[in-house]
C-alpha cells in the first residue's frame, strides 16, 4: 500500500522523544521493569535455547505451508460456524466490517486490543460512518481518550504515568485528578466500560493464533475485556493478519509459553480464550455470529522473499522494543506507523514502502539486543542490513521502493573506500597521509561535525600498526 502523503519524519519524532524528560523517564522505568520480569522467566539458558528453537520451528513450518494452512483454517472455521472473509487491503477490510455492522443496524462496537485494526484506522473509519468504536483494553481506552496512537504493541499507554492518566480522566471523564492510584484509575475505567459491554452491538478483537487444524481462534489477555468483547455482544468480528496462522493446537502451547513470558514476564496470561464458533444449541452465552477477517496489507510481498519472510515469524511479544536502546530513548510515537521498535523498523518499511519510511532501517546501532531476546529468532539486525541494501539499490529489489534511497555521492564514497581498502599500496599511501596529516581536519568537517557535537575529535596515531609491526620485525607472510 502506498501513501501519497509525505514520508514519515522519523527525525522530528526522535527529536521530540529525546527532549521529553518525562517521556524518557516513563519509558526507562517501564522497560527496566519489563526486562527484569522477562529475565526472571528465562533463568535456565538451556530451557530458553530449546524453547525458542521450537518457537522458531513452529512459525517457520507454518509459514512454509501458509497457503495450505489458510485454506484449512477457512474450511475448519466455516465448519465451526465462523464466517471467514479475506481482505487484500485496508479499504476492503474496512468495507467488510462496515457491511456486517450496517446490515445489522449496529451503531456501537466494543474492541479488544488489535494492532491490525490500528493498521486499518478502523475507529476513525467507523466513526466516519456514524458507528462508535470504544476501546475496552485499559491501555487502549486511555490512549483513545487522549486521541493518541499506541506507543507500544503490548502496552499501548506505557508512555503515560499515573499522574498523567489521572489528569486525562479528570479532563475527559470529570473524575478527580487527585489521590488516584492505579487501582482507583482502573476502577474508573471499569465502571465506564461495563455498561458499554452490555449494550454494544458487536465486539471486535484481534487474534493471537488462528489454528488451522481446528478452526480455533486463540486470544490471550489480562483484563477480561477480551472475553467480554468476544462473548457478550451478539456479533463478534475477529481481525488478524494471514501470517499468524499456526498448524495445530500442539503448536499453540510453546508459542504461548514464549509469548507471555517474553512480553510481560508472566508464565501465563489471566485469560486464554479459545474461540471455536458462535453459541450453539443450549449454550447460555456467546455471540450469535462470529466473523474472521483475514488481512494481507502487504504481507504477501514480504512473504515472497525467503529472507524477508522471517519478519512474518513475529508473535508480537514486544521483547525487541523492551530491550531496544533506541526505543527506550525516543519512545514509540517517534516511529510513526503502527509498529514501533525493532520489529517496526523492519516491518513498517516492508508493508508501507521504504520511500515512506526512509529512516527506519538506519536508526539502529545493530547492537543485537533485540535479536538476543526474540522468542522466535527473527534475525532483526540482518533484516535491517538487508533493508539498508534495498534502500541503497544493492538488494534484490524485493522490497517496495527498493533503490529509493540510492545516493550517487554515497555510492562514490563507498567505491573510493573499497578501492583504497582492497589495494595494499593505495591503503598504505592513504594511511600514511592520515597518520601524518589527518589530525589537521577541522572538527567542523562534514561527517566529523555530527561526531564532535558531543565528543572530542578522534586522533590519528603518529604511526600505523602496519608500520610499527614492520619495524618490530613481526613476520609478514
Amino acid at each position: 500500500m502506498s501513501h501519497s502523503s509525505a514520508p514519515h519524519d522519523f527525525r522530528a519524532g526522535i527529536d521530540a522523544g529525546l527532549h521529553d524528560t518525562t517521556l524518557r523517564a516513563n519509558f526507562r522505568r517501564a522497560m527496566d521493569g519489563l526486562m527484569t520480569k522477562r529475565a526472571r522467566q528465562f533463568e535456565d539458558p538451556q530451557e530458553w535455547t530449546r524453547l525458542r528453537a521450537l518457537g522458531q520451528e513452529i512459525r517457520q513450518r507454518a509459514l512454509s505451508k501458509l497457503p495450505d494452512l489458510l485454506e484449512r483454517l477457512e474450511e475448519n472455521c466455516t465448519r465451526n460456524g465462523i464466517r471467514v472473509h479475506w481482505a487484500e487491503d485496508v479499504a476492503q477490510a474496512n468495507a467488510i466490517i462496515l457491511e456486517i455492522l450496517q446490515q445489522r443496524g449496529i451503531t456501537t462496537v466494543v474492541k479488544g486490543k488489535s494492532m491490525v485494526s490500528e493498521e486499518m484506522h478502523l475507529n476513525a473509519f467507523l466513526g466516519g460512518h456514524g458507528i462508535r468504536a470504544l476501546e475496552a483494553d485499559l491501555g487502549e481506552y486511555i490512549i483513545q481518550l487522549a486521541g493518541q496512537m499506541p506507543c507500544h504493541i503490548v502496552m499501548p499507554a506505557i508512555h503515560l504515568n499515573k499522574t498523567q492518566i489521572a489528569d486525562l480522566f479528570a479532563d475527559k471523564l470529570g473524575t478527580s485528578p487527585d489521590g488516584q492510584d492505579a487501582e482507583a484509575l482502573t476502577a474508573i475505567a471499569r465502571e465506564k466500560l461495563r455498561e458499554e459491554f452490555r449494550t454494544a452491538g458487536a465486539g471486535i478483537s484481534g487474534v493471537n493464533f488462528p489454528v488451522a487444524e481446528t478452526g480455533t481462534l486463540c486470544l490471550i489477555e489480562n483484563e477480561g475485556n477480551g472475553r467480554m468483547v468476544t462473548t457478550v455482544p451478539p456479533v463478534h468480528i475477529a481481525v488478524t493478519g494471514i501470517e499468524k496462522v499456526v498448524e495445530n493446537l500442539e503448536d499453540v502451547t510453546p508459542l504461548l509459553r514464549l509469548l507471555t513470558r517474553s512480553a510481560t514476564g508472566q508464565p501465563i496470561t489471566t485469560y486464554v480464550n479459545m474461540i471455536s464458533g458462535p453459541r450453539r444449541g443450549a449454550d447460555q452465552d456467546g455471540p450469535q455470529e462470529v466473523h474472521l477477517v483475514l488481512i494481507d496489507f502487504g504481507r504477501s510481498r514480504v512473504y515472497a522473499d525467503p529472507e524477508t519472510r522471517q519478519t512474518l515469524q513475529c508473535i508480537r511479544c514486544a521483547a525487541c522494543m523492551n530491550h531496544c536502546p533506541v526505543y527506550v530513548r525516543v519512545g514509540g510515537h517517534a516511529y510513526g506507523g503502527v509498529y514501533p521498535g525493532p520489529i517496526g523498523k523492519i516491518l513498517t518499511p516492508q508493508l508501507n514502502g521504504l520511500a515512506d519510511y526512509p529512516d527506519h532501517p538506519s536508526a539502529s546501532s545493530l547492537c543485537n539486543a533485540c535479536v538476543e531476546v526474540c522468542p522466535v529468532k527473527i534475525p532483526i539486525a540482518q533484516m535491517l542490513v538487508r533493508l539498508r541494501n534495498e534502500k541503497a539499490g544493492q538488494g534484490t529489489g524485493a522490497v517496495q521502493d527498493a533503490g529509493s534511497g540510492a545516493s550517487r555521492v554515497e555510492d562514490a564514497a563507498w567505491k573510493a573506500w573499497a578501492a583504497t581498502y582492497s589495494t595494499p599500496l593505495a591503503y598504505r599511501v592513504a594511511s600514511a597521509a592520515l597518520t601524518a596529516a589527518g589530525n589537521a581536519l577541522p572538527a567542523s568537517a562534514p561527517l566529523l561535525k555530527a561526531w564532535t557535537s558531543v565528543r572530542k575529535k578522534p586522533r590519528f596515531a603518529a604511526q600505523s600498526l602496519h608500520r610499527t609491526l614492520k619495524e618490530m620485525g613481526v613476520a609478514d607472510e
Partner: protein
Amino acid sequence: MTTGPPPSAPVFRPLPTGPVTEVYLFGTCLVDLFTPSAGVSTVRLLQREGVRVIFPQGQSCCGQPAYNSGHPEEARTVARAQIPLFCKDIPIVIPSGSCGGMIRQHWPHLFAGQPEEAAARAIAARVWELSEFLVHVLKVSLEDHGTPETVTWHSSCHAMREMGLTDEPKRLLGQLKNVTVAPLQRERECCGFGGTFAVRHADVSAAMVADKCADIEGTGAATVLGGDCGCLMNISGALEHKGSAVGSQHLADYLWERTK
C-alpha cells in the same frame, strides 16, 4: 540490573587440536590508524606465551563499515582482498569483537553463492577475539605488577552477541590482584557507536553515549576498559568532551602494561 539471557556455557566452540604455536593477527582498520598500541600489546601478549605472530602487511579491514551501510558489493571487495592473506590453517586473533563478529557471523552470508564462499567460511571458523583466545586457547595466567586501581568494563555488543563472549575479559582482569572491577549498572546496553549510526542518527547516539558516560562515572572507576576500538573511540571522545577525569584504554594495552 539483569537483562537478557544469562551467560551460556563457558566454552562454546571447538578449541584448536594440539598446541598453538603460530597465529595470524588481524589488526583491524581502527586499531591500525587510531590505536596501534592495542595491536602491539596484542602481539606482546601472544609472543609472551610462546606464540609466533604473523601480521600480513596486505591486510586492511573486514568490510563492516560498508556492509552495515547498505553497500555489500563494496564490503565484499574489501573482504575478498583479505581472504588470500590468511590461508594457513592457524587461528586468526583479532583485538575486536566487532570485526571478529563481522568475519565469523557475516562473511558466510556476504559470500553466500560467491566463488570465495568456502574460503570465507574457513576463515570465519578460525577467528578468535583476543580475550577468548587468551582464556580458552592459551589459558594464560597473569601476574599483576601494577598499583591498586579500580576500573570498569564496557562489553561490546558484537563481542557479546555475535562472538558469544560471556565473561572472558573479566576473567582476565580478575587475575590482576591489584585491580578491582566495578561493574556498570547497564553493562549489556549499547554505548551508541554503531559505526555510521553515530553520524546518521547523531542525536540518538549522543543520548546513548551520554547515559553510558554517566554510568561509567557512577562506578567511581579511574579507567573504563573495552575490547573494541569503536566503542572506546565513542566513549573516550564523549568523556573527554565533558571534561571527565575517567580515562579509557583497550584491554590489550591494559593487560600488557600491568603484567610486562
